[in-house]
């Protein structure tokens, strides 16, 4: 939609219309950094949280697992202890009943052992540590167990209760086991030996292995002295490890603190892998289940998540980077387009606003869509006033010229382009002439969009035209007057020549005629002097007749219309010379022709001109025994120069001015024939051809008459 523009002043400057590139880049960089920092922050916080959560979960899991194992193992031990207690009771009942019934005890022990798959033997020793009863026992072999921890501790510490010895390779079965023992008393109350069960290390290991702690996890069973009872997974060097104390300061500290449960992270393990450990004391026994999970493993999920997240973040970073770049590029293009558009707009505004003439655009509804600021210069009214009052345009038209605009309005109804001149009354009351022109405007879609008008202050022109018209009228009057005067003068001249022709010749003829009649018819009455005088009369009348003829011819030369054509000057000179020579057969004449160029002129006049010049030359060379007449010419720029030179009597240069005047002679009458019109005629003919004539001469040496004619005319001739 078109918005009316009032003046250039109200428009925003081009530079203000687009954000500067630097500012945009700064804002975009800040936005980019902010959004990425935010994402990093959130992701980092989330990872941190999930890291902690993973740790907690791992710890909890380890704790639960250690609880589970501790309970299981406690159950096993309780069941074994129950079996031991039953066996102790049986042994003591038999002893009290008079002695051990070997086969019955063996059966009893075998029965008890059969109920407990986790043990591979349930046996008794005597007070000296000799294995006496149980499955696979040969009493005669007298295998001793006196050095074994489970026996020693029972023997040395009466009333100890259950002893859980450290793992050992059993002598009888050659299997690793954790021996559990209880002492029995002889009927006298003294130490009678121990009942012991070998808890299979394999079983323990299986129990531990049943708990999944991950590929790099570990479960350990230790006693309070940190001796290793069982391990899962079972290391290759289990023989060197089982029953040994392996330092683990964190565990030691925990046990010494008397705590039953806890957790810690440590690398102080059999295989040196860092793990998170959960410790649980097997309830009621000095045994500790230690479940260790490899940090690497339990954090693997988190690490995967973290890696994935990091990848996502990196992707996000990359995406935002590319997006920023794309946005920047797009913005750059947009910016360039905006600037280009703004520049174009500014250009068109400049074109529209800086017109000298008063220009406007009237919409289809008569509303003013544009008013050039120059309207104020022309009308005295501002653009704003025109925009506010569309009828102002017509109000300022001079009342006497309102009909002109009305006529123009009806013109433009039919024509796309139209113009009219009218007067306006300016705000200050001054009347100015306006040259108005307008044309219909159509949009790209062919829709009528009003008219674009141009108003020019043509007051000076109108005034100048009026002046010119007046001057022209005056000039025409003057020309008419002058023409009339000239015509009158010409008429007078014509009448004059006519009159001369008739009226001067008639009396002359009478004088000559009657003088002759006098001579013819009255000669007898006249003496010789009378006859001589009559002869003088006749000669002079004839002479005067010739003078009149020449004068008339001279006058005719000025009035005759020119009849241009090619003239072969050399040929013409030859013809004339031939005629002249015939008229003076007794003289010796020589003609020298020096290539006079042809010319373009009135042949009759040129012939008269050359005749006059040549006959003058013939005339004034009369005293010379050999007359030499030279005729030549050449082209000089835009002129052709001709000359006729003779070796005659010449003339005195002080009389050169008189040479070309009518009836002026530079030689005394009688010396040479002539009326004095010859050179005057030459000058008139040359003048009528647009040329110039002059003479050079020295007394008694000769004369040269030169004349020029325009060469342009000669050039035409060369083609003919």
């Amino acid at each position, binding site marked *: 939609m078109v918005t009316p523009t009032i003046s250039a002043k109200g428009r925003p400057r081009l530079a203000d219309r687009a954000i500067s590139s630097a500012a945009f880049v700064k804002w975009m960089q800040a936005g980019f950094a902010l959004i990425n920092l935010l994402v990093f922050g959130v992701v980092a916080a989330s990872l941190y949280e999930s890291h902690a959560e993973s740790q907690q979960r791992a710890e909890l899991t380890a704790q639960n697992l250690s609880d589970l194992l501790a309970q299981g193992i406690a159950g096993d031990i309780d069941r074994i202890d129950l079996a031991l207690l039953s066996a102790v009771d049986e042994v003591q009942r038999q002893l009290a009943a008079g002695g051990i019934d070997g086969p019955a005890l063996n059966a009893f022990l075998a029965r008890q052992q059969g109920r407990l798959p986790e043990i591979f033997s349930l046996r008794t020793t005597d007070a000296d540590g000799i294995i006496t009863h149980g499955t696979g026992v040969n009493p005669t072999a007298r295998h001793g167990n006196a050095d074994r921890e489970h026996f020693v501790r029972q023997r040395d510490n009466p009333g100890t209760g259950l002893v859980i010895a450290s793992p050992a390779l059993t002598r009888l079965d050659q299997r690793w086991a954790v021996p559990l023992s209880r002492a029995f008393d002889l009927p006298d109350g003294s130490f009678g030996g121990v009942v012991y069960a070998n808890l299979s290390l394999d079983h323990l290991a299986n129990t531990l292995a049943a708990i999944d702690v991950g590929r790099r996890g570990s479960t350990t069973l230790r006693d309070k002295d940190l001796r290793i009872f069982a391990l899962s997974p079972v290391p290759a060097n289990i023989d060197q490890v089982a029953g040994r104390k392996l330092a683990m300061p964190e565990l030691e500290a925990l046990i010494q603190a008397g705590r039953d449960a806890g957790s810690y992270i440590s690398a102080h393990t059999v295989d040196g892998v860092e793990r998170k450990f959960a410790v649980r004391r097997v309830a009621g026994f000095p045994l500790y289940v230690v479940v260790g999970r490899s940090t690497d493993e339990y954090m693997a999920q988190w690490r995967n998540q973290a890696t994935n997240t990091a990848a996502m973040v990196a992707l996000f970073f990359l995406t935002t980077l590319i997006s920023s770049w794309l946005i920047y590029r797009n913005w750059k293009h947009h910016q360039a387009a905006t600037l280009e558009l703004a520049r174009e707009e500014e250009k068109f505004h400049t074109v529209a606003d800086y017109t000298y003439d008063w220009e406007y655009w009237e919409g289809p509804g008569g509303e003013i869509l544009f008013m050039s600021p120059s309207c104020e210069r022309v009308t005295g009214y501002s653009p704003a006033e025109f925009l506010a009052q569309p009828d102002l345009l017509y109000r300022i038209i001079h009342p006497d010229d309102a009909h002109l605009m009305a006529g123009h309005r009806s013109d433009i109804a039919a024509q796309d382009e139209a113009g009219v001149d009218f007067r306006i009354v300016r705000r200050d009351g001054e009347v100015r002439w306006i040259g108005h022109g307008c044309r219909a405007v159509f949009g790209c879609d062919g829709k009528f969009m009003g008219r674009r008008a141009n108003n020019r202050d043509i007051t000076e022109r109108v005034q100048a035209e009026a002046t010119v018209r007046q001057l022209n009228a005056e000039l025409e009057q003057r020309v008419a007057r002058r023409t009339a005067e000239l015509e009158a003068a010409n008429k007078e001249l014509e009448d004059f*020549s*006519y009159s001369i*022709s*008739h*009226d001067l*010749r*008639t*009396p*002359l*003829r*009478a004088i*000559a*005629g*009657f*003088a*002759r*009649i006098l001579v013819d018819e009255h000669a007898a009455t006249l003496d010789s002097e009378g006859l001589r005088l009559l002869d003088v009369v*006749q000669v002079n*009348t*004839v002479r*005067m*007749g010739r003078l009149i*003829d020449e004068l*008339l011819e001279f006058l*005719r030369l000025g009035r005759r219309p020119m009849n241009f054509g090619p003239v072969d000057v050399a040929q013409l000179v030859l013809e004339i010379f031939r005629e002249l020579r015939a008229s003076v057969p007794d003289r010796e004449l020589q003609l020298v022709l020096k290539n006079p160029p042809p010319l373009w002129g009135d042949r009759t006049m040129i012939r008269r001109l050359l005749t006059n010049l040549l006959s003058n030359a013939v005339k004034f060379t009369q005293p010379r025994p050999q007359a030499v007449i030279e005729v030549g010419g050449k082209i000089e720029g835009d002129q052709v120069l001709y000359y006729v030179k003779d070796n005659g009597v010449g003339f005195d240069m002080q009389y050169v001015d008189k040479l070309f005047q009518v009836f002026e002679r530079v030689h005394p009458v009688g010396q040479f024939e002539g009326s004095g019109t010859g050179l005057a005629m030459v000058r008139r003919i040359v003048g009528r051809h647009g040329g110039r004539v002059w003479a050079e001469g020295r007394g008694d040496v000769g004369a040269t008459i030169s004349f020029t004619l325009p060469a342009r005319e000669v050039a035409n001739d060369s083609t003919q």
Partner: protein
Amino acid sequence: MTQRNDEVEILLVEDTAADAELTIRALKKSCLVNNLVWVKDGAEALDFLFATGAYAERDTAQQPRVVLLDLRLPRISGVEVLRRLKNDERTRTIPVVVLTSSKEDVDIEECYRLGVNSYITKPVAFDEFVKVVGELGLYWLLLNKIPNE
């Protein structure tokens, strides 16, 4: 060739007495003035030729054999006389010789356009004058035949 005594052979139209006398003398020298009538202006010439005015009694059947006409005449000019003669059936065939002092082209052209039979410029020198007048008289009176009416 038979001639009646009263037959007019030459009508001389000339206002200048001196010229008329010179012309008559010149004709006399060629013996051609048996029946010459001299009128002094154009009006009189027309009266004579059309038998009007002072010449009303004249028999128009008897027309001169040649008219010698000066151009510069009082009242009606020679050119006008020529025009009327040549525009009238009765007088068209009368030979007209213009005898004038004028050498102006406009006169010569006008006269020939109107149908003049000869145009003679009177020379100033009397010898030449006699010669010219004699020759033309001889031609028109003795040699030239006009159609019989």
